[in-house]
């Protein structure tokens, strides 16, 4: 059926009516009949506010504009991000090992504005009024109304006693952190010690923490630093491709310890001296329950890459959108399932489905979300059996690249996304290097271009 203008107006009116009926005044208006509906609403564009310009947020903003036009819908999309550019964690491992300029992973939002007509606002959201359907900006007073709010704010880290991120970088989110870790490794002293702390799952990747450890170990070896490289893992053993990474760690002389719980760190002085990390080794039973722990041990190190355990971004907690550390959502729409938080959708790393916390997954989730919202606005129902497909690549040494392909499928019985297919490259290979760059380039262009 072609979507004529008249059809569209009816759809808009139906949508407005459903919204309107949710309010007390709406119920009265509904009783009074259709004539009492605010007719002018049909002409107003649907206001979409997107918070966070990473892979999820940028993709959502772009595809709202592309697909609304195809559907004959009018949407006004505003992307809010505190930065002018997004610094991609994907391929950031090549920055750390000085194989890629950090600028090459900066993606501006200009194309979203100039080509796709997305409104850009370089600002932060500090509060969400889910009843009034507004967000408050960083000045504390300016508010922005929304019909649908898309939150793609990424991750934050569970704090560790003594952790000053300006001295002990996670290097896991944001350009400044990536640059700090890169520089500390560039300045790495002969015979020095590097400690990398692997976070408890679920964590953001690619690159994953195990790849970071092997690439840095390779890099320090190539630089003839005669370094001691230590991996402290929250998991009992390497969580993915255990054999591959154990082989690499053996090759590079990496010391690996599992079941580690960090107690505190000493972030050192302004000259970078005096850093240390203090931890215990947990004893666990066969079900993974903690039944004991070792005495504390401390390692003094020249560079500590503390990739803290992850949780949803602060905004999710402040807005009451979390259940535990993540935001529960309906995987058909990515709308929050918390009562009173209707019309708020959470994409990417902060949402709580079992889907991997990858930029490509966020891109994918954004499309599921946008397609669903546009269908709802057109008076239809969301697509009922979405899948999320991810094929991530990352270097594991300075010359070899690995990939992992995974597909999640919606289970209508459990109402959850479930892993359907998962596979790794048979072995890390130089042959995967160019395909990795091609994959990343297309993903960057699809998300930001």
């Amino acid at each position, binding site marked *: 059926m072609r979507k004529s203008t008249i059809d569209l107006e009816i759809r808009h009116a139906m949508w407005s009516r459903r919204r309107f009926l949710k309010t007390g005044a709406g119920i009265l208006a509904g009783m009074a009949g259709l004539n009492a509906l605010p007719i002018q609403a049909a002409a107003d564009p649907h206001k979409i506010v997107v918070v966070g310009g990473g892979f999820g947020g940028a993709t959502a903003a772009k595809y709202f504009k592309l697909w609304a036009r195809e559907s004959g819908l009018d949407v006004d999309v505003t992307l809010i991000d505190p930065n002018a550019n997004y610094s991609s964690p994907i391929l950031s491992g090549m920055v750390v090992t000085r194989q890629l300029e950090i600028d090459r992973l900066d993606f501006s939002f200009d194309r979203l504005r100039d080509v796709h007509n997305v409104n850009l606002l370089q600002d932060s959201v500090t509060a969400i009024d889910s009843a009034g359907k507004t967000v408050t900006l960083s000045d504390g007073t300016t508010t922005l109304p929304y019909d649908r709010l898309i939150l793609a704010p990424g991750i934050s880290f569970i704090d560790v006693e003594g952790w000053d991120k300006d001295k002990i970088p996670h290097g896991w989110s944001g350009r400044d952190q990536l640059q700090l870790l890169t520089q500390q490794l560039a300045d790495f002293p002969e015979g020095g010690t590097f400690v990398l702390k692997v976070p408890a799952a679920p964590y953001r990747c690619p690159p994953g923490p195990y790849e970071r450890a092997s690439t840095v170990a390779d890099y320090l070896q190539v630089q003839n630093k005669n370094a001691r490289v230590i991996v402290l893992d929250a998991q009992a053993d390497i969580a993915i491709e255990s054999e591959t990474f154990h082989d690499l760690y053996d090759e590079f002389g990496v010391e690996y310890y599992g079941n580690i719980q960090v107690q505190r760190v000493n972030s050192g002085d302004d000259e970078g001296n005096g850093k240390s990390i203090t931890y215990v080794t947990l004893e666990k039973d066969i079900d993974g329950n903690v039944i004991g722990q070792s005495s504390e041990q401390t390692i003094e190190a020249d560079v500590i890459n503390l990739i803290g355990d992850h949780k949803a971004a602060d905004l999710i907690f402040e807005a009451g959108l979390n259940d535990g550390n993540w935001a529960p959502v309906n995987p058909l729409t990515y709308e929050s399932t918390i009562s009173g938080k209707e019309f708020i959708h959470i994409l990417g790393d902060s949402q709580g489905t079992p889907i991997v916390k990858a930029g490509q997954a966020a891109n994918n989730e954004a499309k599921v979300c946008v397609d669903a919202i546009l269908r709802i606005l057109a008076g239809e129902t969301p697509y009922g059996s979405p899948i999320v497909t991810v094929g991530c690549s990352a270097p594991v040494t300075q010359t070899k690249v690995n990939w992992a392909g995974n597909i999640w499928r919606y289970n209508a019985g459990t109402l959850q996304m479930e892993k359907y297919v998962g596979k790794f490259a048979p072995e890390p290979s130089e042959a995967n290097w160019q395909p990795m760059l091609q994959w990343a*380039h297309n993903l960057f262009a699809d998300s930001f271009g």
Partner: protein
Amino acid sequence: MKLMHKNNHRKWYRPAGMAMISLAGSLLLTGCFDSSSQDNEINSGIYFDISTVDYSAVTVDASAADLAPGARLLASQCAECHGTYGVAVRDWPDLWGSGRQISNWMKLYQDLNYEDNMMHVHALGYTEDEVNLLKTYYPKIEYSGAQ
């Protein structure tokens, strides 16, 4: 239109450079480093130009709006690696305009001979009905821009 894209491409690097200068300034406070020297020692030759697709040259046939639910969405998931609307960047396979070939490719990649290829995973992951939806969508896309 293409000229504008080129301008955008140049503009793209300017804010990054500015950010670098300000970052170097702020890091001096912590006694760390002069960040601008860092990248000068690297010459990767690797660029990710995201401005190559000319969206004014993309045509989506009006009948695409009538396709079964899921067609547009499933097709867009291929775009993560094959470009928005299947218009790929960096000499990678395009999907726009493809119909029957898509199911041929998806069947081919299911073969174990392709297990070292990422497409093997995706070929196993899509049901036949889903592949058929992809086949309905991509013939609706035309691209007349330079590549």
